[in-house]
C-alpha cells in the first residue's frame, strides 16, 4: 500500500477514452456504515420481537433462532443488498455511494461476498480501525475487503444542469452578437473557473458589498483575458453582468 491517495479513479478503455469515478471519502463511508449498522440492529430487534411475540418456540429454540438470525443478518445484509441493488446498501443509497469493480466491470457475487466477509478484519479492533487506516493510506481509498475483492466505493454521479434562470436570467446578451468569439470563450473556460463563477452568482447576496465587487472584478478580468470582445459589446456592462453573460454563453450558447 502506497500513499498518494487519489480522489478519482480513471479508467482508460481500449478505444482510448478515459472515464472516471469519484471515490467516496472515509467520512462518507463511515456515515453509510453507521446507517447500515442501525438498519441491522433494527432488523435484528424486529426479528427478536417477532420470535418472542409469536411464542412459537421454547425459550431455548427462541434464543437459538435469535442468535443465528443476528449472525446471519449481520453477515448477509451487506451481501444481499449489494447483490440486489448493484453495489448499494441502505446507507450507501442514502449517501449516494456505490460499490464498483475496480476495472469498471460488472460486480460479481464472489467479489461482494469477499469484501463483506473481510469486514471481520476491517472492523478490528473496534469501529473499523483497520479498515479506516487502510482506506486512508490506500491509493483508491480501499479497505482490506475492497483490496481483496478488487472493488472501490464511488460517489454516484447525478449530473444536473445549472439553473440558468436563477444565475443568469435570460436577457439580451451582447456577447452572443459575436458567435465566433463566444464559441472561442466556451472552449477556453475551464470547468473550475465556470464552477467558481456559478458559485459566485448563486451566493452573491451573501457577500459583503466590497468583497462582491472585488470578486466579480477578478472573475470578469479572468474571462476577459481569455477572449477579447469588441468595445461595443462591453459598453455599459458591469463586471457582474459580464460574468452572467459569460455563464449564459457557456451553458446555452
Amino acid at each position: 500500500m502506497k500513499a498518494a491517495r487519489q480522489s478519482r479513479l480513471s479508467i482508460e478503455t481500449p478505444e482510448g477514452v478515459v472515464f472516471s469515478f469519484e471515490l467516496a471519502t472515509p467520512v462518507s463511508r463511515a456515515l453509510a456504515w453507521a446507517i447500515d449498522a442501525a438498519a441491522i440492529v433494527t432488523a435484528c430487534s424486529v426479528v427478536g420481537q417477532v420470535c418472542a411475540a409469536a411464542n412459537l418456540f421454547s425459550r431455548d429454540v427462541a434464543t437459538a433462532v435469535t442468535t443465528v438470525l443476528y449472525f446471519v443478518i449481520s453477515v448477509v445484509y451487506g451481501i444481499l443488498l449489494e447483490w440486489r441493488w448493484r453495489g448499494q446498501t441502505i446507507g450507501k443509497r442514502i449517501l449516494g455511494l456505490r460499490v464498483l469493480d475496480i476495472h469498471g466491470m460488472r460486480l460479481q457475487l464472489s467479489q461482494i461476498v469477499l469484501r463483506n466477509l473481510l469486514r471481520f478484519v476491517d472492523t478490528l479492533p473496534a469501529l473499523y480501525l483497520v479498515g479506516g487506516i487502510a482506506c486512508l493510506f490506500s491509493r483508491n481509498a480501499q479497505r482490506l475487503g475492497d483490496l481483496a475483492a478488487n472493488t472501490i466505493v464511488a460517489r454516484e454521479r447525478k449530473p444536473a444542469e445549472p439553473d440558468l434562470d436563477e444565475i443568469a436570467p435570460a436577457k439580451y446578451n451582447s456577447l452572443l452578437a459575436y458567435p465566433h468569439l463566444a464559441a472561442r470563450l466556451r472552449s477556453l473556460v475551464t470547468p473550475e473557473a465556470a464552477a467558481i463563477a456559478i458559485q459566485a452568482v448563486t451566493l452573491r447576496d451573501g457577500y459583503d458589498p466590497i468583497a462582491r465587487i472585488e470578486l466579480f472584478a477578478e472573475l470578469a478580468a479572468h474571462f476577459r483575458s481569455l477572449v477579447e470582445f469588441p468595445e461595443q459589446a462591453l459598453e455599459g456592462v458591469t463586471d457582474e453582468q459580464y460574468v452572467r453573460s459569460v455563464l449564459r454563453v457557456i451553458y446555452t450558447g
Partner: protein
Amino acid sequence: MIIDLPRFVAAERTYWDELALLLARLETEPEARLSLPEIQRLHYLYERSSADLARLDTFSTEPNLRAFLESLVARAYTEIHETRAPVKLRWKSVVLAFPRAFRRHQGAFRLSLGVTLLGCAFGWFALRMDPHVKTVLMPFPGLNSSPAERVAKEEGAKTDRLRGEKASFSAELMTHNIHVTVLTLAFGMTWGVGTLILLFYNGVILGAVAADYIGAGFGTFLTAWLLPHGSIEIPAILLGGQGGFILAGALIGWGGRTPRTERLRAIGPDLFAIIAGAAALLVWAGIVEAFVSQYHQPVLPYSLKIAFGACELAALTAFLAWAGRE
C-alpha cells in the same frame, strides 16, 4: 474541437438516449440475451458515445455534460467488455464448486494442515514437559479441570445438563466457529501471518488437550468426545486457513508477472466456494457438538460415537476428493 455545443448535443442526444435505454434494460434484466443486431447496435452506440466523450475533452466548460457522458460510457463499457458470465445460483454447481475449489488449491490446504500439526506438536510437548503451562495454553474454564475429574463428572451425570439449552448452545457454537473460520480466511490479508498465527494457536490447544487427556489415560473418552464434531469442525477451520493462504499467495504473488488485481480476481470465486462450504460444514458440526458430542457412556457408547465421527470424516474426505471430478 466542437465549436457549436448546443448543435452537437442536439445531434447526439438521440444516440445517448437510445444507449441509456438499452443499458437500463440490460441492467434490470441481467439474464436477458440480446440478438446479434442488438449487440451490433449496442457496440455502435458505445463507440459513438465514446467518440463524443473524447470530442468533449477539447471543450472543458461542460462538466455536467461530461459527467453524464462518462457515466453512460462507463455503464456501456461494463456491458461490452465484461467477459465473466453472470452467476447462476444452481444448487448442483454451487455444491460442486466447493470440492473443485478445494482440489485446485491443495498446496494451501497442506500448509494449513502442516501449521496446525506443528501447533499440535508444540502444545503436546509443552504440556508434557511442564504441566503447569496448562492454564496459559488453554485459558478456558472447561479445559482446566483435571481429565479424571471431568471424565468422572461426565460419565456419572444422572441428568441431562444441557436440557433446555441444546439449541441455543448449538447456535452459539455455529456462529462462533463460523466467525473464527471467516477470520482465519480474512487474516490472509496480513500476507498470511494472521492466518498462520490462528491456525498454530488452534493446533496448540488441540495438542495440549490431547496431551492432557491421553497422558492421563483417557484417550478413548477424548476421541469419543471430539471426533463426532471435530471430524467436521477441524477440517472446516483448516479450509478457512486454506482460504487465508490462497489470499496471501495472491497478495504476495510469488514467481509470476500477473498484476496483483488480476491474481486476486482469479481466486475470488474459489474463496467464495471454500468459505461457503466451510460455513455449511460448521452448521452441521454445531448441531453434532450440542446434540451428540456432549453425551458420553453409558448414554452413548464410545464405540458408536467414534464410528459416527470416523464415518463423517470418511464422507467428507470422499466428497472433497471426488465430488465433481470430470
